[in-house]
């Protein structure tokens, strides 16, 4: 039995402690915004926040999250994430949209840590998030725009 906080609520899970957090969140808890892409921490589609840090849930075992605070795309909140999400839609960033939960979780973590990121900051923070539609050009623009809006 593992106890942790998920999107602000205390949860307990009685599953194989080796089960990746990704599958626990999706298949057991039923929150499907966190996506499966590779199972190898190569694509970032499964990115969630563990104690505020962007983390690949496909490589995080349920047994290792005792007491942790987990945030998924469904639970992300606050001025930064709201602005990111609004700008994302305004800039028509998503195409198929499948990787965008992970992109947004990484972008929110970046902007929390670095309120005014440079292109290089963006490239290094977002490099782990693949987008096969290659919406990168707009992701970069949307992060800059979010930073500008949050500054004012």
């Amino acid at each position: 039995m593992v106890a942790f906080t998920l999107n602000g609520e205390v949860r307990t899970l009685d599953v194989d402690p080796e089960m990746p957090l990704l599958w626990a969140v999706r298949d057991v808890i039923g929150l499907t915004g966190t996506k499966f892409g590779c199972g190898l921490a190569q694509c970032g589609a499964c990115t969630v926040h563990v104690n505020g840090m962007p983390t690949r849930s496909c490589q995080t075992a349920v047994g290792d999250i005792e007491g942790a605070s987990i945030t998924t795309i469904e639970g992300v909140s606050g001025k930064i994430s709201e602005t990111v999400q609004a700008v994302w839609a305004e800039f028509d960033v998503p195409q198929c949209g499948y990787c965008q939960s992970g992109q947004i979780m990484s972008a929110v973590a970046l902007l929390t840590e670095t309120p005014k990121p440079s292109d290089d900051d963006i490239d290094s923070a977002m490099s782990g998030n693949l987008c096969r539609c290659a919406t990168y050009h707009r992701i970069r623009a949307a992060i800059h725009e979010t930073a500008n809006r949050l500054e004012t």
Partner: protein
Amino acid sequence: MSQFLSKHNSVRPTRRRFLVGAGVTTAGLAVGYRLVLAASDIAQTTTAKVQANPFQTYVEITKENRIIIYSSQFEMGQGSYFGIATLVMEELDGDWAQVDVVGGYGNTALYGNLAWGGAAQATGGSTSMSSSWERYRKAGAAARALLVAAAAQRWDVPAGEIKVASGVVSHASGMQARYGDLAEAAAGMPVPDDVPLKPRDKWAQIGSDSLKRYDSAGKTNGAQTYTIDLMMEGLQTAVMIHPPKFGAEIESFDATKAKALDGIVDVVQTPRGIAVVGRDTWTALKGRDLVEVTWNEEKAEGRGTAEIMAEYNKAADDLGAATARDDGNTPAAFASAEKIIEGHYEFPYLVHASIEPLNAAARINEDGTIDVWGGHQMPDLYQAAAAQVGGTTPDKVRLHVMKTGGSFGRRAVLDADVIIEAVSTARALGRGKPVKVQWTRENDMRGGRYRPAYVHAVKAGLDKKGNVVALHDHIVGQSVLGGSTSAAMIKNGIDPTSVEGATNLPYAIPNLKVELTTTDVNIPVLWWRSVGSTHTAYAVETLIDELAAAANRDPVDFRLSMLGHHPRHAAVLKVAAEKAGWDKPLPEGRFRGVALHESLSTYVADVVEITLNDENGFKVDRVVCAVDCGTAINPDQIRAQMEGGIGFGLGAILQEELTLKGGVVGQENYDTYTPLRIEQMPRVEVHIVPSEEPPTGVGEPGVPPIGPAVANALRAATGKTIRKLPIIKNMSGMTP
């Protein structure tokens, strides 16, 4: 449905004569094609026979005031639902907040793709807008006309005095109504024989730069669901074990240990491999590791890509098996040419590698009907395939057209692979037991259906004045269409998808020959975003650039001098060159390249700028793209598709390659098969060339020119054309 169709099958839509019809449904007003449905007809057909899809319409307005648009075209991220909704909304004058778009299916007469004569419902070849351009605007206009007629009757005022805007029908007297309030009455109005469409100068939605996609919000908050996200009572998850080599078959398997694992429901042999069914994905994956399979590899493909490419290179030097284009007399022209450039190009196998790995869900119902959920890019084909595997008829197969995490061609698969796996697994589990087959990334990479590998043997000659007098391209590789349900498209030994982009070369070259040798390799292949142009554009556009250099001519001027009869090609090239500042000098260490290509009737030119560096050779800094796709329906989506096509194409030519050794695929995940990442994405600017021609597609044509444009910039920097892809792996030792 068959009864329904037999009554009306003499009426077939054509591009020129398209009339709409309308009828009452239980939901409200349904506008489709000229089939006036009486309520009694629907009741009769639904009770007498299973009706796979009772609402075979284009536009439905419900009493609850929703506008539901049934899309004939599949949404895989490229924005076809948005494009089609834009066409409807332009004429219907609704409020975007009312709009839902869902995938229609089950009626070829209604949803057949007009770009291919309406013979089947399918999405591909960047044809969604050209196929939908007239039919969906007419449907929107007819729905509007019927709503106006209903209001006119209800308020007893002339129809001409009624105004419609943002989902509200109103009259100067103060009367007003929502669409939903009029839907039922509108369905009873006589259908006009034809409805006029708005003239171009009255458009408010088509061509609007400020119009944004209606479906973005759900893609930013996790609410958008895909096949992988399906939830329903009793749903189990299955993971697949596929043969280790293409063509290998199951000799025997032992699932005892897997079945002993808590949570494993069953282990099922399907026509395509073994499905391990569990209560959740993780359990199924653990069970999969415990299944022991003995494979029979007698019929398996045992060659590796090194052997295959060696065979292709040899074949490319021989005569081609078939001739796709033969203008003038190339041998004679080469004999008298002043200067000749020749060589071989090598293109590797490529994977679509969409981030959502392939999947589908199926349930055999108690009454024998079948539900299939998935990325149904070819609904007619999948309905038939599911029926065959499920032991029933297509009209008993209900499709649920899901959104999909990318496709790039992979969801339009002629053997219906993952659909077959899902339906056969569901059948094995028994009635009333839904199952979702979910491939892992490794299944997806190793599961075949790749962009075929090709070799091009090219030769081109210049005369004394530096004019191109002859060009010969012999293409060697597998046929995408061969052995498929579309094999009839192969004529005289030419699969048009192998040679497109070379056979329609626009340059005025008096002696031009394109040959094709189709190879027999047991590696499953498929169309991959922009199909033949993925390799032909690279070969011909780098060759033309080399010829320009050999003739000591500017690459843009050289091309323009051969485009006298192709003004649309010339126009995009001029725009890209001008916007990129082609005539202006570049800083030290920076180089430019240009490429021009028409694919699927859309014209695209790219000018790229690269910087050489010590770290990994070079970086693509900037891409200026010009596109002519006829009438621009959603300008911002045209830009988005060009940007995405550039990133997709750039990743492929820089670093994507699928290899095989002894018949075994060498890449399993994104650590070894490497699409473009954000730090490699250049700055992109897209310029849309204004046009009043009918719209053509943008999903694919952004891909082909980026590769040769980058290669041409590299040649400008180093003097050498990279003829073997991917570039990064094959550029070692190159120095400026």
